[in-house]
């Protein structure tokens, strides 16, 4: 019997909804939600991943659902691009749901049953965003996603700062949603038909297309966290429970990337080259800014949130490069840049969710989020520590794990840019490549800080001695994600083969078939560049084993434990290690203009010396506060209309209706 993948996907989304609302049966029951519903959700996630995997190579399928408003049914469609992001959603959510089964606890704000509802509605809405084929369905799913994630972020709503973070998130999500709505309005070009199929048929003129692109970049950029619309990200991610942070960072940000790709490369289909320059510039600013801010953070989840901004920046930079090549009609290079972009989406989804879940385990076990109060957890939590090491090496973009492959592809794409027909671009693009390299190197710095301070060294607080390792469910989730980080790093040719149908559909070219053999990743010609992670790993492993064996054979394995040497200083304690602030200090000094620093240094003869330093985002003062003040000013003008009597308000409604009728008729 042939199963229709699109129907199966929709059925899975419905199953997620059903599982979610199952939590309402007994909202207070931890056993029901954690032991039954979340594992079932994980199974559905795997199922979606399998369905998406099989439908990558099938022709697109469309369906009209008997749902929606009269004369405005929901259209659904599953093509290679949707299938790829569904695969990402399914595979990542499987790991996160497994972890969440062990992570849920009683008595943390929202009861487990309700969290189960929000969580699965969130998952289902993301799946529906990916298969929506008309603007109406897309916006419904998009808004459901925003609202359900808002309730998840504010799970712990008893804390004022969490409510504030949720408010900020909701605000920016909706400003973005308006832009997306307007973008679809521009794309339908007065036909009144909001299906994507019609938008694909229409050939908008350059002005309309540009307006649509800029609106899409603004709207989806607000969701993805592109600078300067990133401010909600470092607030919302730490506020949310760790599985939710993982899902938001790993999958939700990618739905925004999906939206951008869908609008610019599928619905508009003929991008102008200079759009690519805008995207490239914004991407690079986000990447560098994100990682520089990550380096000075003292809260481990905020650090990871800023690192998400960096990774989204790299993805958007790759997207910009794709547009640039596509705009100049260099199809094969556009395919290379798009492959790098999609590959990085996949990689970021896995390693970032892994690291967020690791911080979740640490948080549960120690009740501490501040880097300055952690340390030495590799002894107490070995499972989490080794999984986090895999995630850290992957996110730092080091071979042979997955982060390196996508950065390698991105840099290769940059190295081809001297062929561009624009002289000025030729000059600027090496600078862009240099910024990517700097970002990659800085992410290594940030990961040493993160890993070294949380897991290595001496425990900075006495209570850390009671820390316990993650439970069996949590370990299963972590192990799945860590394994995927390794697999994605070791078999790049297979992954690129999977991305081939997407790049063929969106740019007309593919580099999957050009890969030379399964062992060597050679995007264009093997003499130009090639990389083989398997041989690389085998070489390193062989040399390490050889070194270990020869030391044992030719010498000895004697060892004695003693107190640390530390240049003979006997009074050293945990507080003499570098703090998170201390570790960030060099970056703060090198990139001083990036920060707004408020420093209070004690006077020389102070009896009780205190040192305080706050560094803030300059954008708050340059952009957000002026906008907020302007909005406040406008609202004071509008208060003139407020009379506090219902009859006056009814008159307003009547007048509005009259004016609208004038326009419509």
């Amino acid at each position: 019997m042939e199963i229709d993948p699109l129907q199966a996907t929709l059925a899975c989304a419905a199953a997620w909804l059903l599982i979610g609302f199952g939590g309402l049966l007994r909202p207070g029951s931890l056993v029901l939600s954690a032991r039954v519903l979340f594992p079932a959700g994980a199974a559905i996630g795997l199922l979606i991943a399998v369905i998406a995997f099989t439908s990558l190579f099938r022709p697109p399928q469309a369906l009209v659902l008997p749902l929606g408003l009269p004369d405005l049914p929901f259209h659904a469609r599953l093509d290679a691009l949707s299938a790829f992001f569904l695969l990402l959603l399914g595979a990542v959510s499987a790991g996160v749901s497994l972890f969440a089964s062990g992570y849920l606890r009683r008595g943390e704000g929202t009861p487990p049953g309700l969290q189960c509802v929000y969580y699965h509605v969130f998952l289902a809405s993301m799946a529906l965003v990916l298969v929506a084929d008309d603007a109406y369905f897309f916006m419904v799913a998009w808004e459901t996603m925003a609202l359900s994630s808002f309730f998840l972020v504010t799970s712990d709503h008893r804390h004022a700062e969490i409510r504030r973070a949720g408010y900020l998130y909701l605000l920016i999500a909706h400003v973005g949603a308006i832009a997306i709505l307007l973008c679809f309005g521009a794309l339908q070009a007065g036909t009144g038909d909001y299906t994507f199929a019609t938008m694909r048929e229409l050939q908008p003129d350059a002005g309309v297309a540009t307006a649509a692109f800029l609106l899409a970049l603004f709207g989806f950029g607000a969701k993805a966290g592109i600078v300067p619309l990133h401010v909600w990200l470092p607030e919302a991610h730490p506020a949310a429970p760790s599985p939710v942070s993982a899902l938001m960072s790993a999958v939700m940000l990618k739905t925004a990337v999906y939206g951008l790709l869908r609008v610019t490369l599928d619905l508009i289909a003929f991008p102008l080259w200079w759009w690519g320059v805008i995207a490239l510039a914004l991407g690079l600013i986000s990447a560098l800014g994100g990682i520089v801010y990550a380096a000075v953070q003292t809260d481990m989840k905020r650090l990871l949130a800023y690192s998400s901004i960096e990774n989204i920046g790299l993805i958007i930079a790759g997207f910009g490069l794709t547009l640039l090549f596509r705009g100049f009609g260099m199809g094969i290079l556009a395919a290379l840049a798009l492959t790098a972009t999609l590959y990085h989406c996949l990689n970021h989804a896995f390693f970032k969710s892994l690291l967020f879940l690791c911080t979740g385990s640490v948080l549960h076990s120690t009740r501490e989020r501040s880097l300055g109060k952690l340390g030495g957890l590799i002894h107490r939590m070995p499972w989490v520590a080794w999984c986090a090491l895999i995630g850290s090496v992957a996110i730092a973009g080091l071979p042979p794990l997955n982060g390196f492959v996508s950065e390698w592809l991105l840099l290769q794409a940059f190295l081809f840019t001297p062929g561009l027909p624009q002289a000025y671009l030729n000059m600027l693009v090496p600078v862009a490549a240099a910024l990517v390299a700097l970002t990659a190197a800085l992410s290594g710095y940030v990961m040493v800080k993160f890993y070294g301070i949380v897991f290595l060294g001496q425990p900075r607080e006495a209570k850390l001695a009671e820390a316990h390792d993650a439970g069996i469910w949590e370990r299963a989730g972590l192990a799945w994600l860590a394994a995927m980080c390794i697999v994605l790093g070791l078999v790049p040719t297979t992954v690129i083969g999977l991305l081939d149908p997407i790049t063929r559909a969106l740019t007309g070219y593919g580099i999957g078939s050009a890969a030379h053999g399964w062992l060597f990743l050679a995007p264009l010609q093997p003499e130009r560049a090639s990389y083989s992670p398997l041989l690389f790993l085998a070489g390193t492993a062989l040399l390490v084993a050889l070194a270990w064996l020869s030391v044992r054979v030719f010498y000895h394995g004697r060892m004695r434990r003693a107190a640390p040497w530390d240049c003979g200083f006997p009074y050293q304690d945990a507080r003499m290690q570098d703090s998170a602030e201390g570790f960030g200090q060099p970056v703060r000094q090198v990139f001083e203009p990036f920060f707004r620093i408020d420093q209070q240094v004690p006077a020389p003869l102070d009896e009780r010396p205190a040192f305080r330093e706050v560094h803030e985002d300059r954008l708050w003062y340059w952009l957000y506060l002026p906008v907020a003040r302007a909005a406040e000013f406008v609202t004071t003008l509008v208060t003139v209309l407020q009379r506090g009597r219902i009859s006056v308000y009814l008159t307003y409604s009547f007048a509005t209706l009259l004016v609208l009728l004038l326009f419509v008729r």
Partner: protein
Amino acid sequence: MLSLQGLVSQFAVLALAVLLAPMLTGWVNQCRAWLQNRSAPGLLQPYRVLTKLFSKEVVLAHNASPLFRSAPYAIFGCLALAAAIVPTLGTDLPLNAAADAIALVGLLALARLFIALAGMDVGTAFGSLGARREMLVGFLAEPALLMVLFTASLISSSTSLATIVQTLAHREFVIYPSMAFAGVAFTMVSLAENARIPVDNPATHLELTMIHEAMVLEYSGRHLALIEWAASLKLFVYSCIGLALFLPFGVAGPGDWVGLLVAMPVLGVKLAVGGFLLALIETLSAKMRIFRAPEFLGTAFLLAVLAMLVHVLLEG
């Protein structure tokens, strides 16, 4: 793809690098002693030190984790592989297809990540201070090195090291202005990455000045021996990258057995000259404050970017 000559030269390169790297360090130390009017230690002194360390037992801090114990092997393995990638004798290296210039930089960064994490593991003040400074040097030096390699890649339109060396070696003799900028940047980067004056001083244990030594303070016995050996290998790798990019003459092409034999003494001479120049630079310059290091490395980074720009503008 695999040829007999490829395999032979692959093993020759690896064995030569691993065995001769300490001698290069010994040679630099000897030159430096002569230049500073001291009586020099023998050329084989590093080997004696390594043997001594290997025979001693390891004294491990109470709270050292398994990461601390495995890091020396990982670092040694990474740097040995890096040495095997750089085409110093012949361009027909099987491992060259597995890792290109970007992977080489990644490999060096992987070794740095491990050594910095190991430095933080015991949780002493010196260890984390060293790790932080090492990463500071690293995040500025790594992109600069990458840009230097990219300049060469743009000239030869390939990131494969073998193709780069082949293109640079077999062209008619032209001085590329971009490679001149790249050369200056590369020299600065190598000084910083190998913990040399003016950025770091390999011969001191003074806390205000040390970077590399601060990180490895807690290591002893065979672990310390491996770290020291890896440090020698790193110097060897950087010297070889420099020779491959800026003096690629005398490297054997594919199928050239005689060239492979000739390449060995040529490499020795080139390394000896390079080592002497390194000692000269170290003798002539003073150690700078750590706060000045970002400026120094920032200059190197800008010079490397400039090299790429010059290539695009003048030679493209």
